[in-house]
């Protein structure tokens, strides 16, 4: 029963081969992560396990706050990603939709272009 399952096309059957492939990959990665534990030498001292700061003794925690700029870039990424996601269905039957569909897509892109322009003007895309 299960043996014949591969033949028919369904969304699940299409993606099932990913599973054995993933298992092989996971096996390799797990092996590579554990091998050095068996082969490598094990010495431990305070200087070795300190975090690297060019030889100077580490000062304070690394867990400090940093620029909010990274956050803004990530948000812009998500919002434009969604734009692409909405344009995919349009791109896929662009010929069936014709000129009307094209105009609608242009409106869609133009509205988001305003957003890009706003971010541009506010200096979000500039890195000091």
């Amino acid at each position, binding site marked *: 029963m299960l043996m014949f399952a591969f033949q028919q096309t369904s969304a699940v059957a299409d993606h099932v081969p990913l599973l054995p492939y993933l298992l092989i990959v996971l096996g390799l990665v797990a092996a590579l992560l554990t091998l050095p534990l068996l082969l490598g030498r094990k010495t431990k001292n305070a200087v070795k396990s300190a975090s690297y700061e060019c030889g100077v003794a580490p000062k304070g925690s690394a867990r400090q706050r940093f620029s909010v700029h990274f956050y803004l*870039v990530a948000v812009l990424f998500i919002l434009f990603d969604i734009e692409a996601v909405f344009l995919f269905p349009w791109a896929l039957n662009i010929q069936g939709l014709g000129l009307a569909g094209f105009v609608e897509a242009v409106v869609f892109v133009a509205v988001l272009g305003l957003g890009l322009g706003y971010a541009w003007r506010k200096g979000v895309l500039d890195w000091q």
Partner: protein
Amino acid sequence: MSDTQVYYLAFLVKLLVVFTLAVGLVPILVYAERRVSALMQFRWGPNRVGPFGLLQPFADMVKLLCKEDLVPERASKVLFTIAPALTCIPPFLVMSFIPVAPSFALAGREMKGVVVDSPVGILLLLALSSLTVYGLAIGGWASNSKYSLLGGLRSSAQMISYELAMGISVLAVLCVSGTLNLSEIIYRQTQFFGYDAQSGNWAGWNIFAQPLAFVIFLVAAFAETNRLPFDLPEAESELVGGYHTEYSSMKFSLFFMGEYIGMVGISSVLVVLFLGGWHFPGMNSLGVQPGTLPFTLLGLLVFLAKIGVLLFFFIHVRWTLPRFRYDQLMRIGWKVLLPLALLNVLVTGAVVAGS
């Protein structure tokens, strides 16, 4: 053996071939990179271990395996260990979606030249490349070191910025191809220089229909794989070693393996989307019957040759161009590539919708 058993055995072989392709190209690339760079700089490069230094990558491998596996005192142990795995698993999975060869008939069935023939393949490829970000960000964070953290953040910000341009350039290709399935995208391109009524395709390979999308994708590919001139996240002169500063031994090499397999993966995607996949003009008139095993192997060979050229290009560029500054890099991503890609989509849309 019954037909079904033959089929599944062949399927397993195919799985292993694709996997070996991904893993096997890594030592070759490491070797090629060192030899090519040496050639370009009038040096010898590795030539001691084995003939022409061919065994050098394996010697490196043994050395790395025997190194001490350090975990910094203040690191988050579990996340520190998972991060290298997270960076190299997605590029591995990319290879399973790539149609590396045409399909052939076996035991009365069609054996496809791809492990996972997904109807939404290209979307999943884009998704996989965005999953790579986790490894970098978590690796940098879990090390609990200032350089690692900043390096991890920088590379993640860079990757997501260029991913956007990449995704939108793919959009233009879809306007031409009209499908998300990678095998079909290749099939559309095999109609070389013939008019294909359904897709309105005049000139086979997408690189001719979409040269701008190709350039954008290529530039983004360099940024995605953290290669020079976009390897700023690991710029030695500024951030010590970037997100993998604190890593040693095999965990360190997993990051590098991820980078090299990522290179193989992204070259494969480029070949599939723009360069006709396993196909080249005149392939059908060589006397090899399409749909048979020899034809499949021929296709695989063509595919390997194509990604070989691209990989050489990757290496050549690394030793030719200087590195960008971080602000330049972000500016190129957001102010040049993104608007250009959007414009390209709209122009393509106008042409295709108007025809």
